[in-house]
């Protein structure tokens, strides 16, 4: 293979090139670090670049090849991790003052699995503080800029991972999705972002937000890259360290190119009429429908009668779980500790007051209220009952279709500060949240740029539990006909990152 820019190569091309000796993993790592160097000043996707770890991992990959050992499917592929994922040798801050400088003594299972597949860890990416947000603006450290228009947000909470991939700084990045935190920023940044079925990917070592909603998944510029990363995440089977993880014995690449002819796509008319859905995003759904029909898929209308209550259910369940999960941050064993306190109560309250940002405090306060005695029965318990209804809605819908096609986000990337009311921000996830409530998989697929805005538009596919392979097959079908695959945000394409 002749000299190329790293941002033009797919993950499998990089792994194949390293395996074939076309270039070394160290060369790839240096190219990736160069791209970060050249591009991240404007994007600020990263909170930390782990150059030493990247080079060491790449050297190990090259040494393995030299010794004739088999290489992993992600050999040499530059990856980034959302900063709520523990990786020994890096800081895990969750973009919070609370964890500024915190070094985890252990590595998350999802991170380890990519490393075991040969990936090169380039760094940790920015996010909304503790994943509370849809714009990455609540990061305690700095904003991240949308590579398509740096006056706009990249979405969130996994905004750093989405932006790093969109700007071509890395080939694959991991994010976590509690209510849309992978699919929404993927949509705003014009990349593929997948939230697998709850339980398919281990949550061990990923700082928890909403334990029954959180799921880790990959970003890529190609559906194939996402499939490859998914394979690495699930191939070793369920994680014995995560009680809710399950075996997902599937090869996501195997049926990627299967035709969708004769298969059924559901659309939910009610959602397409939703208030706040932009014309561009609605057009994207029409285009994707046409494309899938052109490939022989059947499009049927399905109903999700209770989906309108998903946001309400979510804003009961998620804050409650967040309050509980974040109770551990008391400044004793780790994290910010308020100096000079004479009593424990004072130290705890001030450490939490000064360590957490506004949204983190709001969510915990809401959760602490909703769980209190008397209130629990009015909100928490019924929210979990409504969850049953929403889940049942999906089950019924999937009796009529293989996947559901719907928007990923109501609108394209918004400007910094444009949405300042927290409850208004919550509407950003109106199309993604129901899937977390049900625990099903979903994927955001780029549809090129909008005619009016010039910003990335996208669609979302959702599927039944543990049928994530179908999602990738349909996503690939859309990719084939609707979006130029592997697109890097134009302002950054080719800036640094030459493979020498």
């Amino acid at each position: 293979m002749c000299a190329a820019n790293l941002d033009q190569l797919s993950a499998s091309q990089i792994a194949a090139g390293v395996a074939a000796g076309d270039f070394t993993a160290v060369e790839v790592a240096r190219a990736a670090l160069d791209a970060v160097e050249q591009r991240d000043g404007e994007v600020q996707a990263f909170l930390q670049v782990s150059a030493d770890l990247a080079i060491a991992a790449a050297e190990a990959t090259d040494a393995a090849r030299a010794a004739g050992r088999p290489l992993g499917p992600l050999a040499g592929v530059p990856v980034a991790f959302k900063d709520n994922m523990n990786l020994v040798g890096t800081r895990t801050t969750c973009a919070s003052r609370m964890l500024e400088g915190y070094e985890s003594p252990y590595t998350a299972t999802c991170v380890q699995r990519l490393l075991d597949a040969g990936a090169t860890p380039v760094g940790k990416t920015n996010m909304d503080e503790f994943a509370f947000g849809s714009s990455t603006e609540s990061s305690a450290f700095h904003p991240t800029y949308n590579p398509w228009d740096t006056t706009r947000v990249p979405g969130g909470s996994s905004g750093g991972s989405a932006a790093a991939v969109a700007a071509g700084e890395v080939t694959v990045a991991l994010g976590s999705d509690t209510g849309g935190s992978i699919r929404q920023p993927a949509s705003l940044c014009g990349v593929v972002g997948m939230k697998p079925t709850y339980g398919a990917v281990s949550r061990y070592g990923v700082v928890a937000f909403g334990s029954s909603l959180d799921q880790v998944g990959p970003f890529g510029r190609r559906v194939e890259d996402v499939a490859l990363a998914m394979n690495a995440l699930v191939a070793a089977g369920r994680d014995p360290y995560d009680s809710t993880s399950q075996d997902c014995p599937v090869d996501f690449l195997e049926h990627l190119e299967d035709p969708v002819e004769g298969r059924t796509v559901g659309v939910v008319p009610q959602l397409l009429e939703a208030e706040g859905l932009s014309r561009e995003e609605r057009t994207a759904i029409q285009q994707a429908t046409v494309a899938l029909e052109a490939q022989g898929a059947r499009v049927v209308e399905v109903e999700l009668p209770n989906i309108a209550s998903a946001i309400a259910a979510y804003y009961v369940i998620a804050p409650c779980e967040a309050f509980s999960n974040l109770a551990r941050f008391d400044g004793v064993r780790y994290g910010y500790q308020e100096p000079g306190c004479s009593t424990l109560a004072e130290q705890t309250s001030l450490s939490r007051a000064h360590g957490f940002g506004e949204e983190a405090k709001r969510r915990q306060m809401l959760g602490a209220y909703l769980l209190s005695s008397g209130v629990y029965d009015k909100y928490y318990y019924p929210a979990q009952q409504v969850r049953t209804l929403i889940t049942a809605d999906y089950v019924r819908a999937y009796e009529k279709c293989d996947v559901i096609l719907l928007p990923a986000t109501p609108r394209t990337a918004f400007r910094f500060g444009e949405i300042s009311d927290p409850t208004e921000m919550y509407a950003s996830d109106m199309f993604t949240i129901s899937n977390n409530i049900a625990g099903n998989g979903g994927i955001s697929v780029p549809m090129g740029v909008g005619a009016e805005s010039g910003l990335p538009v996208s669609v979302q596919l959702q599927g039944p539990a543990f049928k994530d392979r179908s999602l990738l097959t349909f996503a690939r079908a859309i990719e084939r006909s609707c979006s130029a695959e592997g697109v890097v945000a134009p302002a950054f394409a080719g800036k640094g990152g030459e493979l020498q």
Partner: protein
Amino acid sequence: MKKLAEVLRDWEAVIGLEVHTELTTLETKMFCNCRLSHDDEPNTNVCPVCLGMPGALPVPNKKAIESIVMAGLATNCEIQRHSMFYRKHYFYPDMAKNFQTTQGPVAFCMHGHLDLEVSGAGAAERPDGTGVEKAGDGSYVAPVRILRIHMEEDAAKMVHVGGEEGRITAATESLIDYNRCGTPLIELVTEPDLRTPEEARLFMEKLRETFLTLGISDCSLESGSMRCDGNVSLRRRGETRLGTKTEMKNINSFKSLHDALEYEICRQAEVLEEGGIVYQETRHWEPSRRRTVVMRVKETADDYRLFPDPDLAPFDLTDEFIEHCRERIPELPDAKRERYMADYGLKKKDAAQLAGDPKVAAFFEEALSGVGEKVVGTLANVMVNLVPSFPGLTVEQVRGISGLLAEDAVTFAQAREVLEAVSQSSEDPVAYVDAHGMRQSTDEGALGAIVDEVLGRCTDQVQQYRDGNKKVLGFLVGQCMKAAKGSGNPKAFNKMLAERLGA
């Protein structure tokens, strides 16, 4: 203050217990694979899970679940097929996550019971005619319902330093050791069915014997692996409404449990009789001053924000799992006691003593193997009356001394002397007795000559005996012993003297 007996004539004490038992015999903690700590240096057995580090997740210990199911079956509980773990929140750094993982409204074990057999002096604490039927000797059976037994994790140990050492109120700082944090803990809650301190004490004893027999814990009240909180309230005899209860903490012996409850019952009676109010509060038992003092007044119920732990899959225990637990339950103390009484003719008290401690019972049964039928009773007697004084004894030694006693080769007093000498070594008691010329003769020929000589010499006493003063036999046995220079068996002398005098 009035005495307990007096108080309980006018007042009914309503007592409930909460008993926490650490599953000390397991290898690892409840939700991670850290070793359980027994006297380790602070923070030796810790990992991301039990330190509550960001991102760590719990996985339940299978053997702990098996243990609690066994505990439930052994206490006649209904094993709940479906249950979940919950999170119970309170901000205090002895819980690394600031919540304790415990169970919610449905525990693994619900609605059990234990029957207490109350006898002896303690039975008198319960006035006659108060809900139980007493036997002629005053003993009675008190049925005690168990509300639930649930699974949870223990907290870290905190040491409060500065000021008066160990006292929370004066401490300037506290040190936290997470070794104990995450230790599997089962909490048993009784219904308020107990009526006297003695019943409470017996319940704890019985529970401890049961858990020891199951092998799920070392059940040490002293070291805190078994901990008991007692709740007590008073109401006038005949009243059906419950009074305000207080909760007793720092109970680290059976005696403390009894005495703390006794004190508290008398204290509450005094308060009430003087027209005062009993406040719902937690009180601390001070054994040295023999009193309870207020620790904390509970003005409102604590709000722990309990909700199902989303990180832990629910449980749907299968029949197979429960049967597997049932099969692992060894013979329980009550059944064992009955068997000892039936098979070896032991008295109830002796049988209960041997059956109550699984180590003692196992030792007893091992010592019994290969022992002739005639020796069994003697061996049990040795187990009850001698062995507790000599902790180092081997089964062989117990068997040896029992054999000697059974064939009247040594007296009981001599047996004690022999065990004193051999308990520190593994020396055979038989060899010791022979080496020290302690073996007593039961040879009728040799002893008969001595008996005849004594009868010939002590004519006065013989006459007294024949006149009806049977007590004089003891004197004559003594004379025989003296003449035999200690090597004659007193029982043999006794028998021969009685035979000859009776003829």
